[in-house]
């Protein structure tokens, strides 16, 4: 009776992944991503955790071309 075979659908709507399964990964990866973006995008520019300009200069071109404010 209610056997709908949905021939028109390109892909059937998949079942969601439970949020509790995603959260630990989200926390870990979110933290890593923030640290990464910080070092490429802002370290030794507006704020400095390390002294000197080595990090700033090493990622200098990437920082400019990826659209971060540089100097």
């Amino acid at each position, binding site marked *: 009776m209610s056997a709908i075979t949905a021939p028109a*659908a*390109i*892909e*059937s*709507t*998949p*079942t*969601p*992944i439970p*949020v509790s*399964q*995603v959260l630990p*990964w*989200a926390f870990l*990866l*979110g933290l*890593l*991503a923030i640290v*990464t*973006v910080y*070092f*490429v*995008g*802002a370290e030794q*520019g*507006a*704020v400095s955790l390390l002294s*000197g*300009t*080595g990090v700033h*200069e*090493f*990622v*200098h*071109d*990437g*920082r*400019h*071309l*990826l*659209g*971060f*404010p*540089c*100097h």
Partner: protein
Amino acid sequence: MRTLLIRGLLAGLLAGLAAFGVAYLVGEPSLRTAIAYEETGTAADHHHDEAATSEHAHGEEAEVSRTVQSTWGLLTGTLAIGLAVGGIVALALALAIGRIGPLGERGTAALVVGIGFVAVVLVPFLTYPPNPPAVGDPDTIGTRTAAYFGLLLASLVAVGVAGSVARSLGGRTDAWGRAGAAALTYVVLMLAVAAVLPSYDELGDFPASTLWSFRLGSLATLTTLWGVVGLTLVASLARIRTTPARAGAGSPA
């Protein structure tokens, strides 16, 4: 979940490589021109007394040589940002699959990457266009950086608000109606945010054509990065679907 993350990170790695290629070929020429201009000392006067030059050197006297900056340094930057983007996109996708409208895995992936590109690249690009070396007052780098990251945060929050507006409409309209309402919400919110944020005019006499080609190069780099993440992820999901195991089941690549 793990499969999805690994695919996201691999897509990010590939995207970082591709973005490096584009940045090196398209972005570096105007960046070199800008640095040459910077070192003639005709750039905005505040930047180039002797003390400032030694503090922020690009030329031969720099701690990291220009060659390293434009190759390994640039590659490190694009790979790092590629991995970060790939990872975060995979996480967002994990939460979005089966929860956004009548979309399959690939459709959801394309939508997530598209929304991410608009929110994280396009809107910030239009609000605070990237500047080459020699543009920008070092005295305002603090507020400019804060404004830039504040804008990113506001943009992501606006995406969240737009999403909940769409959700709250429930069955009152179809998926297109909800998508339209979400888009409208986002645009109105971001126009308001952009109007409130400070604006900076620190170009001085910087040559307009170099500025234009630098900004195009930057947009090309970022578009490549996000585009490759999207295409690779969608393509890899197609392979997941042809195998009997599901996305969360950890099927071998």
